[in-house]
């Protein structure tokens, strides 16, 4: 039985400015759920609210039966939801190992975390060699590796990705999408915010399109007839 991460009638924003006006969506474990939308559509705001970085003004957040609404950001991780901010969010002055140890910070069992880190780092030979190098001195692609490996350290149920392709070269974008599919293969549920529809659409299992802080479309990639249909949806037109 796979767990569902659900957002119900979410209203939130920055300061006093309401950005998201009652959005609902659901993501399943072992699936990639993509959220598209133009700048200012509120797509990043939704994941920040799920991660606890922004307060929920109205509506509910749930993981299966568990209530996540109103949890502070540091508690959300303990429920198995890891958010990777734009650019990966690695700590530049920390070594690769310190970054990975931060990934397991929410867990008490440090021996388990150490084992888990060793298992994960084995999958990335180039990180293996640079364990004690400051993450800030790594290339953009290597920093993304650290970010993905770090997100997996606590063995999460869901990983939230805020525009993982932003600022990456075309070659790195496809590499990153392959990593996102890698998360799904592990059975992790992925919620991915993207602007780069062309790269993200092929990997998506479910699709939401937001515009102006409202949901304009919910469905699967198969529901998209052609590029014109997609553009109409994207620009906030009717389905």
């Amino acid at each position, binding site marked *: 039985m796979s767990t569902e991460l659900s957002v119900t009638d979410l209203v939130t924003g920055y300061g006093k400015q309401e950005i998201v006006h009652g959005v609902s969506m659901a993501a399943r474990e072992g699936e990639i759920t993509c959220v598209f939308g133009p700048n200012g559509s509120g797509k990043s705001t939704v994941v920040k609210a799920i991660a606890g970085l922004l307060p929920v003004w109205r509506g509910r957040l749930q993981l299966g039966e568990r209530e996540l609404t109103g949890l502070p950001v540091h508690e959300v991780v303990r429920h198995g939801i890891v958010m990777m901010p734009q650019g990966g969010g690695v700590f530049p002055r920390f070594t690769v190992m310190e970054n990975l140890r931060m990934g397991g*910070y929410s867990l008490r069992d440090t021996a388990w975390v150490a084992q888990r880190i060793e298992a994960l780092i084995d999958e990335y030979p180039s990180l293996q060699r640079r364990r004690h190098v400051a993450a800030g001195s790594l290339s953009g692609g290597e920093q993304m590796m650290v970010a993905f490996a770090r997100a997996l350290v606590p063995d999460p149920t869901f990983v939230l990705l805020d525009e993982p392709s932003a600022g990456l070269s075309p070659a790195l974008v496809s590499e990153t999408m392959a990593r996102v599919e890698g998360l799904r293969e592990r059975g992790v549920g992925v919620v991915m915010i993207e602007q780069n529809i062309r790269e993200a659409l092929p990997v998506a299992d479910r699709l939401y399109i937001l515009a102006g802080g409202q949901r304009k479309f919910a469905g699967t990639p198969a529901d998209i007839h052609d590029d014109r249909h997609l553009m109409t949806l994207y620009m906030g037109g009717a389905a």
Partner: protein
Amino acid sequence: MDLLLQALLNGILIGGILICLTIGFQLTFGVLHVIDFAVGGWVMLGGYAAYWASQLLGLDPFISIFLVFALFVAVGCAVGPLIYHVRTSRYARPDLMALAFTFGLFIMMRGGALWLWSFDSRSVDSWLSGHSLSLGPVTVPLLRLSAFAMALLLAVGLFVLLYRSRFGLAVRAVAQNRDHAGLMGVDVKRISAYVYGLYTGITASAGVLLATIYSVNPEVGVRYTLFAFFVAVLAGLGSVGGVLVAGLLLGLVESLVGTYVGTRYSLLVVFATLYLVLLVSPKGILQRGI
């Protein structure tokens, strides 16, 4: 030559205490992004705490320093959330509000001390006072040597905590990016309160040492706030490692100027040094954070 050696030694001994005085201040800036004007106030209160511990309980300052440390860690952990609240407020310019808040705290400490204990300078006696060691041509006052050792112990303790513990990892993560640290599961508010507590504990302990070497009155705070600013800016704001170099440098400059030029020129030369260093290296000596 003997005079030079003596001056250098005095400079190093005082430099160690200046390190202890600034290191927590620097950590607080790195983690909470608050320039704490009250730093000299904590020094002053630490000095008074040692004085009263000696008067009322008959404790030697080298014993009471541990109690003072514990007491001020507790006080700092209580004040820390207030400062965090002001600093992270959603209203305009929380950075300036936090500066004003600590400035107010400083005024209250100074006013409170004047009201409670008057302007009289109090000295704190230790059984080490008056003893000294002769090392060839130089004389080492035991009091200053022990104070130096104690200051170093506190500073090293802080470094071990920062670089060898899970708590330290969290503190350094928060210093780099508060939001990202939160996403990893770090309770940023609680860590910030603990950091402020550590800072007040260490700074008050430096106050115990300074009160024992010199004396304490309600006005000493201003001077120590200036010193902390000097060392912090010279080190590069937020750089805990740079404090080690900058603190020793300030101690040496002060001692050399005091010996060869005259004590009344020491502040002048100290700030001229700061000016010159910043001219060459605007970000301070070690241009990186913790």
